[in-house]
């Protein structure tokens, strides 16, 4: 492995100090003169037509400056999904419609002098609804006679894909590689189960926040908590019907995104209110609104069927997926596609069949959520692998190693499908998964614990261990693009302008490290300025785990271009050929004469002395393939068979993210994802009543893990070297959220001999399953 100076070191985050000092860095930390406060009126009904809205009393209330509803805003069909154009999500949403499709759907919005006035004003809006029957169960959404949620004539996809809104059918794709039926015939054992995964909210500590105002030139500035500043600019321009040049989007520091902010959720309304009032407008979601009117992980029903031979050969896999898109389809197709495209290349299997549907229902819409479909598919696949291993009497460690993709291999899935449609052929050029499995198992004490738990202690409390492996392809190949710009300053420091969106992840730091490594300078000499559509070049944004890999490559290329310019000037200064020169410690040194010029001398010469010019460069990178990051997870659980309580005692993750550019930050991503995943597996849960209302829209009732709940998590980074990534780096943001569901389910099975096919594994569900088993 190559030795680096800055890459591979856990340098402190470039923004750590001001963050620790509580500087006003987040979207909501500014107070503008004359700023108005916006509030949105939400639908109390799951499905209804709005016959009339009377806003007379509201408008008459002193302090109210604007009221928006379907009557006075342009009807522009678009998608709220923050994806590259043309978006692979249906155009099925408008700013305000004369129809509501879920409880918590938008009805109207108000801008007023204070939040209190806005709240009061909301109550004065009179809405006449004509109630329509609603459908909540995805398995009934396509039934004959089911209420049609998108009956408007203008909903459509921009790209040629299946779409049948008249039957609530939001997306469909199926594919077969090899011959599934043949594979089944070759199997000694066939296993088949139905699985269900549940809703999940992102629970970013910072809620969706947007402040819009006009600059001195009368252009609209949108300061927003987003993962996708450039998509926000494009989509808001579209909704407001103004050219992009009128809009500047600034992404400040962000308090977590996890996919929830890969969405133009509130920016269009806030911007429209600013346009109407010509005043700054602030719109911030409450925590309750995050639960009722933001986005969630798509719940899915999945049917898995696999064939295995006694010798451990996986002969066939079939996965049938039914995704509950909710009331609108942002990310519905792409998340659905990833249950195959980014999940199934993990497996050594020639015969794979996959059939997937996404349907509209009158529930909160799904959206992007860390894991993006792979999390859902990894659950049935991880459990099926465990069950197959057991059936043929093989240790799961060996069975996983035998049946997962290795370096130098390919999967037919790569070519057959990507998240947007057609895939790209690729060979896995970096993979340390076998080593991850071995080292993870060893550090976890897998063999010893499997042996030990064959004999369970007396009493109600049982113990078990389970494992699962996972993959997550990064980026959307041939679509995702990132770019960077840099210029050199008098003292030899650099401004690095990146479109990439740091969400608290540390992306600014990682990109500064890659830049510093390439030019052999300390990180302090890189002044990062991120995510401002007026100033920084385009970047698709923070999603598909792509920032380190893709934006990192753009930064590396930018630095290399600058390096060339520096060497050219130095060659002229030293009177030596460029080929003899190298960069070292902020200087250029001749390997021949040993002479040396400092960066500060070089830049001064370029700026002031001879053939004056600005040393600067811009570079872009297009993703050509989805780099595969891998992990092997091991969970140890305690199950109280009398109360159903499951406690994770210890958790080990061995992770292949290529080169970890900043190991501390990479570990942070791993631990965060695991915690997020365990909390999802054990306690997080939405409750809806029979009218489609969310019954638990608060942290008091929707329980996420907090510090005292965290089990012992051990992270092992097992490096590999990805030739297409910056200094061998791949991706690390998402992959590890795919482990907890299957690993914990498998561990529960190991403890009590009962499998859980439905999530979450709450005490109540576990107790019920144990009682059912006891009853047979």
């Amino acid at each position, binding site marked *: 492995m190559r030795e680096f100076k800055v890459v591979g070191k856990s340098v402190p985050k470039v923004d750590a100090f001001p963050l620790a000092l509580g500087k006003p860095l987040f979207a909501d930390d500014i107070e503008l003169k004359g700023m108005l406060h916006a509030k949105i009126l939400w639908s109390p009904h799951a499905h209804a037509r709005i016959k009339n809205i009377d806003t007379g009393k509201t408008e008459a209330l002193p302090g109210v400056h604007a009221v928006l509803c379907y009557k006075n805003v342009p009807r522009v069909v678009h998608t709220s999904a923050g994806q590259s154009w043309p978006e692979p999500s249906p155009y099925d949403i408008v700013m305000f419609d004369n129809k509501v499709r879920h409880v918590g759907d938008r009805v109207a919005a108000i801008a007023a002098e204070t939040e209190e006035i806005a*709240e009061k004003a909301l109550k004065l809006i009179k809405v006449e609804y004509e109630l329509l029957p609603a459908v909540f169960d995805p398995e009934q959404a396509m039934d004959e006679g089911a209420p049609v949620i998108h009956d408007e004539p203008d909903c459509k996809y921009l790209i040629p894909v299946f779409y049948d809104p008249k039957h609530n059918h939001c997306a469909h794709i199926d594919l077969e590689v090899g011959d599934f039926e043949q594979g089944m015939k070759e199997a000694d054992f066939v296993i088949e189960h139905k699985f269900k995964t549940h809703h999940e909210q992102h629970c970013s500590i910072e809620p969706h926040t947007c402040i819009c105002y006009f600059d001195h030139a009368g252009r609209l500035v949108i300061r927003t908590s987003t993962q996708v500043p450039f998509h926000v600019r494009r989509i808001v321009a579209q909704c407001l019907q103004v050219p992009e040049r009128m809009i500047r989007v600034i992404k400040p520091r962000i308090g977590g995104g996890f996919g929830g902010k890969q969405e133009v959720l509130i920016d269009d309304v806030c911007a429209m209110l600013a346009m109407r009032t010509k005043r700054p407008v602030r719109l911030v979601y409450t925590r309750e609104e995050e639960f009722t009117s933001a986005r969630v992980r798509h719940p899915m029903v999945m049917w898995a069927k696999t064939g295995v031979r006694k010798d451990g050969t996986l002969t066939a896999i079939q996965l049938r997926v039914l995704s509950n898109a909710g009331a609108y389809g942002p990310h519905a197709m792409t998340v659905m596609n990833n249950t195959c495209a980014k999940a199934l290349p993990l497996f050594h299997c020639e015969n794979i069949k996959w059939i997937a549907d996404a349907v509209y229902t009158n529930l909160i819409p799904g959206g992007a959520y860390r894991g993006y479909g792979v999390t859902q598919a990894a659950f049935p696949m991880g459990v099926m692998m465990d069950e197959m291993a057991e059936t043929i009497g093989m240790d799961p460690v060996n069975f996983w190693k035998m049946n997962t993709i290795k370096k130098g291999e390919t999967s037919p899935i790569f070519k057959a499908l990507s998240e947007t449609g057609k895939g790209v052929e690729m060979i896995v050029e970096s993979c340390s998964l076998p080593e991850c499995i071995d080292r993870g198992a060893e550090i976890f004490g897998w063999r010893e614990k499997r042996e030990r738990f064959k004999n369970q202690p007396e009493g109600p409390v049982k113990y078990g261990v389970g494992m699962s492996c996972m993959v997550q392809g990064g980026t959307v190949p041939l679509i995702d693009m990132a770019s960077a710009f840099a210029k050199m300053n008098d003292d030899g420091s650099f401004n690095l302008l990146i479109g990439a969106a740091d969400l608290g992840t540390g992306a600014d730091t990682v990109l500064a490290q890659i830049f510093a490594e390439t030019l052999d300078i300390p990180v302090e000499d890189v002044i990062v300025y991120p995510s401002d559509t007026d100033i920084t070049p385009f970047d698709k944004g923070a999603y598909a785990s792509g920032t380190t890999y893709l934006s990192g490559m753009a930064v590396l290329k930018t630095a290399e271009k600058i390096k060339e310019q520096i060497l050219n000037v130095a060659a002229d200064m030293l009177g030596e050929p460029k080929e003899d020169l190298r960069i070292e410690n902020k200087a250029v040194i001749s390997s021949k004469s040993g002479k040396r010029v400092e960066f500060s001398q070089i830049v001064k010469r370029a700026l002031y002395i001879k053939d004056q010019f600005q040393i600067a460069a811009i570079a872009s990178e297009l993703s050509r393939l989805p780099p595969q990051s891998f992990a092997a997870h091991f969970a140890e659980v305690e199950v109280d068979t009398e*109360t159903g*309580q499951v406690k994770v005692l210890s958790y080990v993750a061995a992770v292949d993210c290529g080169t970890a550019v900043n190991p501390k930050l990479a570990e942070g991503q791993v631990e965060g994802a695991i915690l997020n995943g365990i909390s999802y597996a054990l306690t997080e849960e939405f409750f809806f009543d029979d009218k489609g209302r969310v019954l638990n829209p608060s942290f008091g009732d929707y329980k996420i893990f907090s510090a005292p709940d965290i089990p012992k998590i051990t992270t092992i980074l097992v490096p590999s070297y990805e030739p297409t990534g910056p200094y061998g780096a791949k991706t690390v943001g998402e992959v590890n959220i795919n482990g907890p569901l299957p690993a914990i389910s498998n561990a529960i099975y190991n403890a009590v001999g009962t499998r859980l096919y439905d999530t979450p594994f709450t005490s109540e569900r576990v107790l019920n399953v144990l009682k059912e088993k006891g009853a047979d």
Partner: protein
Amino acid sequence: MLNDLEYFEPETISDVITFLAKHGKDTKLIAGGTDLLVDMKKGKVKPKYLVNLMKIPELSHIIEDGGGLRIGATTTFREIEESKLIKEKYPLLFEAARAMGTVQIRNMATIGGNICNALPSADIPPALVALDAKAKIVGQSGERFLPLEEFFVGIRKTALESDELIREVHVKSPPAGSGTAFLKIGRTASDLATLNVAVRVTLENNGACKEVRVVVGGGVGPTLIRSKRAETLLEGKILEEPLIEKTAREVSKELKPRPTSIRASPFYKIEVSKVLVKRALMKALGRAKAGEDR
């Protein structure tokens, strides 16, 4: 919203009483605010006047006094949890206090607030009832004592008049031969109780059960439930596992969990109550025998 109200910080109890006598109906007392502020933000409570109790020195103390304990109303859970006296002599209160919320909440939350908020899932009340605690209530017409179980009259309803406040909680020292236990189930460490159980077993010299308290909370009725059946079944008997198991089953029949709870179904609460009551009784019995609680 929190705007339209007047805020007061009296320094004596008599100031509070005078104020309440005048404005009691429009006033909310605030201690740690961990319940009240949540309700106010949600608009569930809209007081005209807010009277802070935290600046009144006579309300915050833990004092041992004549075979018992007096805990001032604004004593925080953290103070209870960290009191050596309580940990050694009233371990049930220590266990209940520690099972409550997170450290951040326990730093703010008070025993008086926990009692007066009268949530059926509150953690300290079952422990106090198991120790036959009394509330010392003060108001315009003087002071009165009320056994804690009579203090709770419904979901978030108490026997307090609008001009009254709780001044202290009096806890009798558990008689010799006592053992206690507190058990709680929640979805996460910071969750309210899906179910909580406080138990005291007091044994005669001959090993028979002299007195027992089994108190179940966690939304199993409009208030916590002190099981009379348990007392009838166990007092005077030699406690052994089969009898304890039978008692736990009987206790579960006294519970009436609401079907609308987010935390768990009535079925789950009933099933688990049998488990927790049994475990708590066994644990308390073991401690009584070992003389752990003196």
